[in-house]
């Protein structure tokens, strides 16, 4: 198991998240894509920590912990916004929130 | 005589018995990895066997204790051939009934998720049994972050409840599942904070270290369990109430209340799948009782120095059975809470009280653990309790009942 394999796994996961965020119409699916991308980034942090020369430097682990906390906060706020928008326009499709369009 | 002493020693420390057995097998020339697998299987089999037996006993004892509280007998017919045995074979009859019942799945239900929900519910319930210390040196997996493992794996239960509720394609199931998850998430915070209080004072997240921190006897005969301190008593009560809510037990059993939501998220389950949910709930209840005993009641420690001749695992299971008995007692005594009362209780009473207990424990430690520290911690826990308690009881006060008789 090399670092490159772990980074490749995280890159594939990131690509999945990116494809979901850019192509799905449902805003909750977009959020799912964002969560996948954040997970891939966390995997990168932990892989680099695992392969570092002095693992007693816990920067990678702590960064991953903070990233998980921030992702949780962002998911909560994002979903609250989605619920609020749904109450207004009665739809969760991102294309339907087009009041300011053209 | 020697054999007798050996037997007594093995009774005191079953892990020595296991080690003797594995050494015996090793002397036959088996490779190390087979020995490791055999020992792991024996440990897993014992733990699951003990807890399934406790589940079976609990299911009939709960009905009998509830019945005696209601001035009637519980199940007392099912016995073994010609002996009644006070109905203690009722679980066998219940098991046969559950297995032979028709497994109905609604046609429009999501088949895969409906099938997987009981499995996903059972897995965390069994996994958390691995970190509980059942006796001296008798913890199946001594993890460095055992308490965190307990809560992390317990989060899987919420996923299972949602899967069960949604897959049934039934409005009441979905509603029951949402209420159950809201309840579980709300009560998880006082549960975790109460556990963190015990971990903070012990200085470790490992359950065996927390039990060891409650060892020793003050003044020679008073046990140093955390429940006997002001902050520990508050934290134990918080953990207990939150554990009742996490296991969906009365008075927090609105998600399963027959009169409100049919059976909530379990409406469309019958037969063995329902038995699996039932089993997962009870095993979860025992696991969380075991955690309460570990964190606050001293784990496998005996209460008095001369009582250590009774094996440590006897003390542990005795304490767990006592806590389970009190849970059944509470079920027999208190009425069910409404969902908004339940959530208000969690967020407006238990959460501030858990913070107060946390600060009280920290002050107890940093004030030197002397008599002043005890008074200070008592004040820090007692004053918010009195304030919040009076605020709540004034809010939900019932007016004086007046009667009017027809003329």
């Amino acid at each position, binding site marked *: 198991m090399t670092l490159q394999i772990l980074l490749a796994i995280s890159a594939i996961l990131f690509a999945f998240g990116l494809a979901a965020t850019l192509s799905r*119409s449902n805003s909750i699916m977009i959020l799912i894509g964002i969560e996948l991308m954040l997970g891939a980034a966390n995997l990168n942090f932990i892989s680099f920590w695992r392969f570092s020369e002095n693992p007693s430097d816990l920067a990678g682990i702590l960064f991953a912990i903070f990233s998980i906390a921030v992702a949780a906060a962002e998911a909560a706020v994002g979903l609250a916004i989605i619920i609020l928008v749904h109450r207004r326009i009665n739809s969760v499709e991102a294309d339907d929130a087009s009041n300011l369009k053209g | 005589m020697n054999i007798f002493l050996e037997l007594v020693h093995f009774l005191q420390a079953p892990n020595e018995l296991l080690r003797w057995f594995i050494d015996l097998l090793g002397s036959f020339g088996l490779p190390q990895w087979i020995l490791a697998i055999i020992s792991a299987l024996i440990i897993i089999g014992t733990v699951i066997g003990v807890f399934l037996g406790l589940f079976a006993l609990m299911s009939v004892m709960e009905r009998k204790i509830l019945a005696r509280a209601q001035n009637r007998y519980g199940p007392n017919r099912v016995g073994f051939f010609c002996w009644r045995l006070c109905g203690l074979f009722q679980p066998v009859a219940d098991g046969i009934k559950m297995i032979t019942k028709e497994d109905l799945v609604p046609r429009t239900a999501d088949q895969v998720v409906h099938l997987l929900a009981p499995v996903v519910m059972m897995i965390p319930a069994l996994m958390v049994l691995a970190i509980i210390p059942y006796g001296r040196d008798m913890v199946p997996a001594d993890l460095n972050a055992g308490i965190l493992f307990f809560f*992390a794996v317990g989060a899987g239960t919420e996923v299972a409840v949602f899967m069960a509720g949604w897959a049934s394609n039934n409005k009441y199931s979905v509603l029951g599942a949402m209420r159950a998850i809201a309840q579980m998430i709300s009560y998880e915070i006082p549960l975790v904070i109460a556990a963190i209080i015990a971990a903070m004072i012990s200085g470790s997240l490992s359950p065996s270290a927390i039990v060891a921190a409650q060892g020793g006897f003050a003044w020679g005969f008073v046990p140093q369990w955390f429940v006997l301190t002001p902050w520990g008593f508050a934290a134990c009560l918080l953990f207990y109430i939150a554990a009742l809510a996490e296991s969906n037990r009365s008075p927090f059993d609105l998600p399963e209340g027959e009169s409100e939501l049919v059976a909530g998220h379990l409406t469309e389950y019958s037969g063995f799948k329902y038995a699996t949910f039932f089993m997962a709930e009870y095993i979860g209840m025992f696991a969380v009782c075991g955690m309460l005993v570990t964190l606050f009641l001293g784990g496998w420690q005996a209460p008095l120095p001369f009582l250590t001749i009774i094996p440590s695992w006897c003390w542990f299971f005795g304490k767990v059975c006592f806590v389970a008995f009190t849970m059944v007692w509470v079920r027999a005594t208190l009425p069910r809470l409404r969902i908004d009362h339940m959530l208000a209780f969690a967020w407006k009473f238990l959460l501030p009280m858990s913070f107060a207990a946390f600060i009280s424990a920290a002050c107890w430690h940093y004030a030197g653990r002397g008599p002043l520290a005890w008074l200070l911690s008592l004040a820090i826990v007692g004053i918010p309790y009195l304030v919040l308690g009076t605020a709540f009881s004034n809010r939900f006060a019932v007016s004086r009942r007046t009667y009017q008789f027809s003329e």
Partner: protein
Amino acid sequence: MICDFLKTCCADPVNFLGDWFVLLPAMVLLLAGGAAVVMRNLIHAALCLTLSFIALGIVFIALGAEFVGFVQLLVYVGAVAMVIVFAILLTKPDQLTKSGSAFSGLGPAGGAAVGLVALVALLGFIFTSPLAKKPLPAPASAPVAEIGQALMGDYKVALIAIGVLLTAALVGAAVLAMEDKS
């Protein structure tokens, strides 16, 4: 006790399965992540996402960062997945099986193309960069006590900032989602 017996039989109990301890959950992670992206049924996508979170947590534990793995399971599976599921239930209870167009904007082909371009770029960097050509060191452990010391020591400002951020985010989310009772 199981850990004891495992330690007596092999030098490194975590590597009992060798590399497959990491690679098997990683394969589940990729499969579940891919499934979560292409599923039409939103609840199935959310459940696949939960499975991918669980697999990611197991990968973290297998890499030796047990604390992060447990935190991942506790926070992502116990909280984020539940919040996503609640949002789905509160916003679309009737249209879950509606087979409208699940893709918009770039469409499935466009999204896959952009993902592929990003993947190729990232893999190019990964397999050519000298930073990634490191040998596997001995298994490291990050005991919880050390993480606690670091959080309260070098990283105390970050810890307090995270606390403020989480409080603000949760109070904000609660206020946003509250029904207008006027």
